[in-house]
């Protein structure tokens, strides 16, 4: 059995959660003796060879230069060229399983290209697709929140989508839906990293029997000891990890300091690890900067970090806070925190509420509500309270386990 994993980026160049998950799976499948190949799209013309979109990194990893013309439909610019050469690539690898970890950048056409190729070769192949955001359901970057109010969206339909994007007529959204569904017909099995996301896709129209939940795996890690406290010190270090943008809600976390009295605030430290603030629009940037300035004593900004540093950073914090204002799916930050043995405080919606158990290994606060978050943070400072959460943390699914589950699915005969 030969497996081809197709990712919308290589972690070497792009460190998103989905790319890392795809790459981890590829490596682990090979470790477990499955002959697996990795194809990752990129948008760096400077590293391409003339006359081909491909350049191999090594025997098993290949980069694929793609230019996406239309993000509304995620189709490519130069379609004719892309699939002729794609056939050539498939001939060369000759996979039995093609597992897409995305289609943005890659080109959704390739869901059909691989099926057309198989038909031409008279070969039976299976196509898998791991779902990440809600891209076919929502044109607002697949986030399922309203464009003008940032309110959560529960179910899309052409009329409501047009309210978010008045320049696009409702019928165009219906076409988009028809389009994606016809492509998703080519997929034999969908993998969803969360039940929440699975339910959203079923509600949208994917057959329940065609979608399976497997979380993204984490490397096996030792649970870190609790941070050492000085005499009388509280569990006061709350950390934020990851991209800084409005969807991730860092501003809610900072604003929570407004809702603590002076004494309470004095016992709180917020550590920020991540980047991206400089790319955000002014309203958000100003709000974050305002609080950083106002509570200099409480907020420390550490900037970007490499995945390898994570253990060291986690050692010196108590809680990881994830205050996202969109649904999320299966956030990498949650997986990492749990694997290092750190309890979380998360928004009470979507993938976050699913992956963290309230009052077991973390806390759910009322999303978008800094007052509720402040109340919980004050409560969480109590070292005994912390200990009970800490003790309950179990290691999330490992990459090894995830790969095993995938192999089982790959081997299952088509229904």
């Amino acid at each position: 059995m030969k497996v081809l994993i197709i990712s919308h980026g290589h972690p070497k160049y792009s460190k998103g959660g989905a790319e890392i998950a795809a790459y981890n799976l590829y490596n682990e499948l090979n470790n477990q003796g499955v002959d697996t190949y990795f194809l990752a799209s990129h948008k760096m013309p400077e590293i391409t060879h003339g006359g081909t979109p491909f350049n191999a990194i090594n025997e098993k990893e290949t980069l694929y230069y793609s230019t996406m013309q239309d993000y509304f439909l995620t189709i490519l610019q130069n379609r004719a060229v892309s699939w002729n050469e794609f056939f050539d690539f498939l001939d060369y690898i000759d996979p039995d399983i093609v597992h897409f970890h995305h289609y943005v950048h890659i080109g959704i056409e390739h869901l059909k290209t691989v099926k057309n190729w198989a038909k031409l070769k008279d070969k039976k192949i299976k196509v898998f697709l791991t779902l990440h955001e809600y891209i076919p359901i929502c044109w607002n970057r697949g986030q399922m929140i309203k464009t003008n109010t940032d309110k959560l969206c529960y179910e899309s339909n052409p009329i409501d989508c047009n309210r978010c994007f008045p320049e696009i007529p409702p019928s165009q959204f219906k076409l988009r839906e028809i389009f994606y569904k016809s492509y998703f017909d080519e997929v034999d099995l969908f993998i969803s990293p969360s039940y929440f996301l699975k339910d959203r896709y079923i509600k949208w129209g994917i057959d329940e029997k065609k979608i399976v939940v497997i979380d993204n795996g984490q490397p096996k890690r030792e649970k870190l000891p609790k941070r050492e406290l000085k005499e009388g010190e509280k569990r006061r270090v709350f950390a934020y990890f990851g991209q800084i943008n409005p969807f991730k809600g860092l501003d809610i976390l900072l604003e929570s300091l407004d809702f603590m009295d002076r004494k309470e605030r004095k016992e709180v430290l917020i550590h920020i690890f991540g980047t991206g603030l400089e790319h955000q629009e002014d309203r958000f940037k100003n709000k974050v900067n305002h609080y950083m300035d106002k509570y200099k004593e409480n907020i420390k900004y550490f900037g970007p970090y490499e995945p390898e540093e994570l253990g060291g950073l986690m050692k010196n914090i108590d809680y990881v806070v994830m205050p996202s204002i969109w649904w999320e799916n299966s956030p990498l930050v949650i997986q990492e925190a749990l694997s290092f043995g750190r309890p979380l405080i998360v928004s009470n919606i979507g993938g976050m509420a699913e992956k963290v158990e309230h009052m077991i290994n973390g806390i759910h606060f009322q999303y978008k509500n800094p007052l509720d978050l402040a109340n919980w943070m004050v409560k969480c400072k109590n070292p005994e309270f912390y200990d009970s959460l800490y003790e309950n943390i179990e290691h999330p699914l490992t990459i090894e386990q995830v790969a095993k589950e995938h192999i089982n699915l790959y081997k299952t005969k088509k229904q």
Partner: protein
Amino acid sequence: MNFAIDTVGIVNEKKIIIGWVQDENVDIKAYYNDGKVLEDTKVLKFIRKDVNEQLKLDKNSRTGFIVITNLDCNFLKFNNIKVEANQEHDSFQQVLNEYLNYPIEEVKVFVKKLIKNDIQAFIDYFFEIGNNRYFFSGWRYSKDGESVKVVVKDGNFQYFDCSRDDLKNLENIGECYKNAGFYGVVELNKIFNDKIEFIFESNTEILRVKKDIDKKNIPPKEKSQIMLNCIDINKKEFKEIFDKVYGKALQDMWSEYFNNLDLQIEVKSYGEIPKNPQLSIIVPLYGRVDFVEFQNAVFSTDKDFLENVELIYVLDDPERFYPTIDEYLKSRYDIYNVPMKLIKYNYNLGYARANNIGVKYATADKILLLNSDVFPKQKGWVSEIIRKYENLEKPGVLGFKLLYEDETIQHIGMEFKKSEYLSNMFINYHPHKGLPDIDKSEKIEEKEAVTGACMLLEKKNYVKIGGFSENYIIGDFEDSDLCLKLREKGLKIYYSSKPEFYHLERQSQDLFDDKNWKFKITIYNCWQQMNKWSKLIEGER
């Protein structure tokens, strides 16, 4: 008897002759050179002191005269004495100016009025519409508010008034803009130098305007637009306009246009069309060719479709897509592997003709006429509609439930409905359009007509009735007309609630920048349908 003509000249398209005659009671008349009296001549007689003194006449003798006549006047007659009045005199302007200051008030006023003309007029269009008939339109009004009659010289003409809101701001127009427009059709007896004379007459004044025939090649679509936009359907007479003038004129113009096209048809295939297909699907393409992508995407995962269908796209939009359509379909075929035929030609022929051509190339017994913005909701629909059709009694057409993108009803059959707003003509009515699709039951019903957006019928029947009628303008009413033709042959029109389709209608209907025109076309087409089918339509009620 002594007399003299002092001067002859032209003002405001009228010939003015000034002179004197010894006998104030003499009868002055103006004539053509063939001896015909010019009836619309006006004569003012007044006291000429200088003449009376010279000839020693009574000092109050009205010996002076000013004659206003039309340009064709060649001579005057004083009783039986003929006097040439052909040549314009160089002195004319000077003499006229002297009369402006004439010591008699009556003369001054007369001359002032002569110089000034209250009638304003302009001819916007004058073009041929076939069979020696010409369409004309323009506007006119008189600053003094008098109504102004329009005459087309040397022709049998009929014209109608219309409002011209665009003239509201003209000097002294007042409320006259409401009736300032005119439009009509004239059959010309003769044309001199491609010019035709329009005469605008109020009770007191007259204005002549010569207009060149528009020689530039205006496409019939544009001509129809110009003609139809004149009609004010709020006026009762609009139906009469069609009955008497427009109906035949537009039909002739279009059929002459189409009959003279040098049509070059090309046929191509992409992929291998199934042998002995169960169904030929004909999809005309106009405007949004990218719908092909979405239809292909949907068809590509439906095995039943791929095994049974001959898919035919008819490109009816050569201006935009003639050179690119081949490559476009080829690359879609490479992705979707849906075999298809392409028929393309070098003119935009409209929905009816596009389908009529498409059907000629259909090889299956059954044909489905499908719009490019219609998408099936589920797989296996091809076999289902064929099975349903085959169980019908005397089937002419089978239509289906079409839904909008918001799942509301677009089509569940059509009814003819009397419209009081449109002179009691019957319009094609889509019952429950835009309402929620409550009735989910599976049923087949007989209907008065069904939409052409998605209709299943047999090719032999289609051919027998001559396909879609080609005299409706730009895609409207052909479908109901087709149903009526089949009903006339004793066949029945059916609607089935299953399978369902989406019809994203708004997308391909945006062919009209000018909504007013779109509406007028509908009215015209509706009139045609009534003209042809009123017995069958009304007979049911």
